[in-house]
């Protein structure tokens, strides 16, 4: 069945360091979305990538969608304590459901 894996599972960084999480799907995706969930909160949409090889930036966040549309990454430059949370990718196969990844839990040490 459809699987979406993320690595690493956990990441501790010093404030100001960069952070990257990687997402891999077992099948080709029609699009991929990224969400952030703060501790005790609910997932909040960050971005959607649709095109093969697409790169999008939101301030310090850079999102990439692989050429084969099976992998994606999120890179945060110069992390801040407000970046703390779990980052999930969610793959859409076009079948009206989203398969969420396993998530990467980011801790930022002040």
């Amino acid at each position, binding site marked *: 069945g459809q699987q*979406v894996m993320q690595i690493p599972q956990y990441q501790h960084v010093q404030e100001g360091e960069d952070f990257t999480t990687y997402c891999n799907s077992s099948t080709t995706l029609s699009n991929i979305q990224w*969400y952030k969930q703060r501790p005790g909160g609910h*997932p*909040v949409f960050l971005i*959607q990538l649709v095109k093969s090889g697409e790169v999008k930036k939101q301030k310090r966040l850079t999102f990439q969608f692989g050429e084969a549309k099976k992998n994606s990454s999120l890179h945060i430059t110069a992390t801040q304590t407000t970046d703390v949370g779990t980052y999930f990718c969610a793959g859409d196969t076009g079948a*009206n459901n989203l398969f969420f990844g396993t998530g990467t839990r980011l801790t930022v040490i002040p």
Partner: protein
Amino acid sequence: DAGVTQSPTHLIKTRGQHVTLRCSPISGHKSVSWYQQVLGQGPQFIFQYYEKEERGRGNFPDRFSARQFPNYSSELNVNALLLGDSALYLCASSSGRNTGELFFGEGSRLTVL
């Protein structure tokens, strides 16, 4: 404007009981999806409804059922509760039929004893 609202926020049930969880989508959104999130894991897709019809179903047993009402609100029902059903149940709404940006509610935290 109100976001996605879910009720109840917390509830405790015992094995074998049933539970009904409710969700009101953002005004104007016609699609509602339900997800189960076990502690430490990503949300797992249960159902999607659009215009009162089921459009997608995840890999969950028949004990799980849902419906969408004419006002686009939705209910998730779980029968014969098991300990493993303990989780955060998230409702998400979106504007269109196809999967786009999901707006999640705060969730209903279910504990099965």
